[in-house]
């Protein structure tokens, strides 16, 4: 069993990662909440034009990315479980999460490339502004998250067992779940939800 130096661990209740991390998590959720409401208002007020652009979005690629990111999150959750048990193979699980996250980025680039190729760019319509900006801000989160995961992968020993602090691994996993959660919201709002206009 690896000794824990976790400052935040208390006998009753446990805050994943460390308390300060949640400033970032809830702060980010709050701001994305504002962004989502802004989008929803636009979707209602500008229903016809939005739907016309929205129909050009491939739900298949969006769904593929959802599955990639959810599976990636599953791997990182299991990395945390394995690290708690002191088991080897944590690094393998982190690498799997990184690989799936990288595949998400690749799919995103293909998707963006397709839209740009067919002439729908940042400024083409208000829907595509939302689409490129929101997925772009989300992609920035994915890249930061991948950086964090790569850094955690360096903190395993030769058997692949976790040697760092649990707060670091948990905190990284929490951030990766945030990235996942935001994507599920974006997928639901931009790809799936269509406003039918006035009822």
């Amino acid at each position: 069993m690896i000794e824990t130096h976790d400052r935040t661990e208390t006998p009753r209740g446990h805050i994943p990662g460390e308390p300060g991390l949640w400033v970032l998590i809830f702060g980010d959720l709050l701001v994305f909440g504002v962004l989502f409401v802004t989008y929803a208002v636009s979707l209602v007020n500008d229903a016809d034009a939005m739907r016309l652009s929205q129909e050009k979005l491939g739900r298949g690629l969006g769904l593929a990315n959802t599955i990639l990111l959810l599976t990636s999150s599953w791997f990182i959750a299991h990395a945390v479980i394995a690290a708690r048990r002191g088991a080897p193979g944590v690094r393998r699980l982190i690498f799997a999460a990184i690989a799936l996250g990288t595949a998400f980025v690749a799919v995103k680039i293909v998707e963006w490339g397709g839209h740009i190729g067919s002439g729908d760019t940042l400024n083409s319509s208000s829907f595509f502004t939302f689409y490129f900006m929101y997925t772009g801000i989300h992609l920035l989160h994915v890249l930061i998250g991948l950086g964090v995961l790569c850094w955690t992968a360096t903190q395993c020993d030769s058997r692949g067992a976790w040697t760092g602090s649990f707060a670091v691994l948990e905190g990284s996993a929490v951030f990766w779940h945030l990235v996942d959660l935001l994507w599920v919201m974006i997928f639901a709002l931009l790809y799936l939800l269509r406003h039918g206009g006035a009822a």
Partner: protein
Amino acid sequence: MKQAGSRQGALRLCVFAGPLWGTLFFIALWPLMHIFPPYSPTWSAAEVAAHVRDNQTGFLVGGILLMTAAAIVWPFITVILLFLKKIEGRLPIWTTVTGLVFTFGQFTVFMCGLAFTMAAFRPEASNEMIRAWSDLGMFLLVIPAIPGTTQYLATGAVILQDSRAKPILPRWYGYLNLWVGILSAPGAVVGLFKVGPFAWNGIAAFWIPAVVFGVWITATQIILLGAIKRNALADEQP
């Protein structure tokens, strides 16, 4: 002991350069230039020029206040850097990065004041000329969020690498810096849009970075005053 006390007094005084900077900035933009909230990027040259001519003195005095703000903020920045250097110790890489980007950022504040001064200096100039300078002022107000992102991420990295049992600066403030850094980034794109949430008067490119920055400067004063009270610069934890 007495000496330590007076040093704390000097540090506290330095911290108040931060709110003074913010106050000058806000007075310039709001009651003087009336560009808080910003005018719409879709305004015609005649509309922008009329706004500048109507508030000519406000623009000129506001320009002076912005340039003054860029000149008096340094003690505040220095206190932040002293604490960051204390955390990083002998190889203060990210403290230096933070300091350099801070310096660059204040240069853009100075240039912003200068651009608005140019816009208002000759009210008889053509509408297009006045709008061009005023637009430059608006860009200099919002776009420097790009280097700002580097600065906030560097500050966050310093604070989160502090391995002392009692950190010099609170860890939540490190995470707050990461948050501010990530959310400042959308300010970078205002050149692309004239309407919508990412235009320079939009919710994502103006209001969110503005509110987030307000949270940052308030939190920074609170944690700096707290760290000065604890005399954290004299902390001798390994």
